[in-house]
């Protein structure tokens, strides 16, 4: 009844008129902004993506054969070894693995935040079609913070204790935008409310130690997204937080990502986080990618022994196992690592030597699903004895 009244009140001519004026205004706007042809196409793409809800497979960053080596006593040891993967627009790629597998080293390599005199980097990081590796500091600074943001693991130590939270967010705008002082403040307050901080005005003037862990991580996120970057690298953003806050932060990241269509590289060792938010998984072990594929594919059909073991190690409330599955041994240190053969060999010692490749490569088992080394074909957990005989080793 009410709706009917509402509609009848509007004149048909009026409707058409408003439509055209709006169209005219928007075209004027387009003209004013001097949007070029490419940008319009980009805009249309975005609309299509929004309508269709699927990514158009437009890669933001393509990492190709990236090797990052650290100098330890005059020798370089690769912590990130020949890693390749790409992140598309509107996609969350999770990088998983134990501590010491080179996840954080990879994240810092992409941002090139490793100290230059102790690090050697090879390969290519093609970010929006431009290789970042040969760039100098000044050129990198135009990318860092502006087109690429980073969220760190421990939000207390990652914020400057002597600087107001608002100022730390504004700092990002200082170097990448030409906004006036007031505009910067408005933008900062907007960012703070965007990341779900209840009293932006108050928080703006607070210092990191006055905020809770979750609040600090929200501030970190607002720093990372301040300049609307195309890519965010989140290095274990939820590790230092308790479970309820973890969920909130993940939801926040996901919602921001859906709004802005950016790509996220999510570094984590929490597989439940991966299942919740990620689109693609890159499993890393000892600096190498051992398995990669879509989340559905990998969680449904994990192939590499390491991935299987990781998934097997998740405590479950349903099965009444009294002992948790443990992956034997530890991740080898980069200085002592044996770089020939399958690196996971030592930790699955019950699998015969012949099962491993001499120089393991990534095999595409299904479209987009890659696994390193052939040992996956012969892998079984130690307590499942029978299967060993059924496999014939080639």
């Amino acid at each position, binding site marked *: 009844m009410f709706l009917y009244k509402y509609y009848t009140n509007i004149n048909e001519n009026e409707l058409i008129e408003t439509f055209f004026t709006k169209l005219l205004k928007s075209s004027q706007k387009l003209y004013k902004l001097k949007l070029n042809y490419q940008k319009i196409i980009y805009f249309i793409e975005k609309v299509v993506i929004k309508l269709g809800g699927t990514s158009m497979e437009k890669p933001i960053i393509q990492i190709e054969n990236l090797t990052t080596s650290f100098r330890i006593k005059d020798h370089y040891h690769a912590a990130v070894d020949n890693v390749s993967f790409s992140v598309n627009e509107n996609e969350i790629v999770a990088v998983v693995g134990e501590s010491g597998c080179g996840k954080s080293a990879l994240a*810092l390599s992409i*941002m090139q*935040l490793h100290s230059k005199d102790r690090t050697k980097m090879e390969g290519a990081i093609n970010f929006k079609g431009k290789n970042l590796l040969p760039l100098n*500091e*000044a050129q*990198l*600074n*135009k*990318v*860092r*913070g*502006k087109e690429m*943001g*980073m969220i*760190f693991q*421990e939000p207390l*130590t*990652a*914020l*400057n*204790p*002597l*600087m107001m939270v608002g100022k730390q967010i504004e*700092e*990002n705008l200082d*170097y*990448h935008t030409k906004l006036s002082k007031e505009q910067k403040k408005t933008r900062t307050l907007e960012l703070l409310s965007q990341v779900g901080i209840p009293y932006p005005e108050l928080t703006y003037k607070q*210092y990191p*130690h006055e905020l809770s862990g979750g609040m600090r991580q929200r501030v*970190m996120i607002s*720093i*990372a997204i301040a300049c609307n970057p195309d890519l965010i690298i989140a290095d274990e953003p939820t590790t230092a937080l308790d479970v309820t806050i973890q969920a909130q932060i993940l939801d926040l990241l996901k919602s921001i990502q859906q709004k802005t269509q950016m790509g996220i590289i999510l570094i984590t060792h929490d597989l439940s986080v991966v299942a919740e938010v990620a689109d693609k998984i890159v499993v890393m072990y000892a600096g190498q990618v051992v398995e990669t594929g879509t989340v559905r594919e990998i969680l449904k059909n994990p192939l590499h022994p390491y991935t299987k073991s990781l998934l097997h190690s998740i405590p479950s409330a349903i099965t009444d196992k009294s002992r948790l599955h443990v992956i034997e041994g530890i991740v080898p240190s980069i200085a002592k690592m044996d770089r020939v053969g399958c690196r996971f060999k030592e930790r699955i010692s019950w699998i015969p030597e012949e099962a491993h490749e001499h120089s393991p490569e990534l095999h595409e088992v299904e479209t987009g699903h890659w696994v390193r080394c052939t040992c996956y074909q012969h892998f079984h957990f130690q307590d499942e004895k029978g299967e060993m005989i059924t496999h014939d080793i080639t």
Partner: protein
Amino acid sequence: MWKFILRRVLIMIPQLFILSIIVFAMAKAMPGDALSGKVMDPGISPERIEELRDQMGLNDPMHTQYIRWISNVAQGDFGQSYTHKTKVMNVIEDRVWQTVYLSLFTVIIIYALAIPLGILSGRYNDTWIDKAITGYTYVGFATPTFIFGLIVLFLFGFTLDLFPTGGTVSSKVDEGTFAYFLSKLNHMVLPAFSAALISTVGVVQYLRSEVVDNKLKDYVRTARSKGIPESKVYSRHILRNSFLPIAAFLGYEITGLIGGSIIIETIFSYPGIGQLFVTSISLRDFSVVTALVMLTGFATLLGTLLSDIILSAVDPRIRIE
């Protein structure tokens, strides 16, 4: 904030009271008194000396002497100086300003040297420049002030005759003129530099290790991830955090400002508090000695309070309620 300061000042009263007892007891425990030197004087008979002692109350029991002294001190009267034949406060007042000028000049040199050296050494750690600066700090730590002061005095004062070797001002200039000021400054150069060049090494080392520590902190990595130029990463993030302990240390400098440096003032015959202290002890001028110790004690307490206030001003994590 004001409540806190008031409370701290009130706490100072019992602290100073305890200090006064110790000072008085130690002064009395030292052998001899103001009249000891006169025993050998043929102009005064031993009976007369005893009489004088009685007059001055030196033969009274310890506690009556203390009560008499402390009640005068509480009224701001430190008594008479036996050697200077005038009020103790007058003696100190003459000297204290000389010491304040010299110490202020020294402190300025210390920080003017330490801040750039510490930053350079910390920022470019393990390079040749850092090695040179650390080398200097080791030499500075190893060199005693009295040796270095003497060398400086000999080289620049006597051999090269570049600077005056004693006093605070030339007798040829009139007070209040610019020449007077320059002359004063000229007299301070040698003592100030020889004290500063040695004392600065501690601050340099402190600042260096703070910078080295801070530049590996997570928030510095965050700053770099924002794409801030390296110079700004230093000025806005690393240095501000590195200056915290140095700023707090500044409060303690006030002690030196008033207490003076015994060694430097003695070597350069600079008539300040430090020199007065040494001569008063050797002349058994206890009223001056006790007054000076009380003054230095008060300055120390004030210095710690000032340090707390400075620290709370620069570090938001420390707030005085």
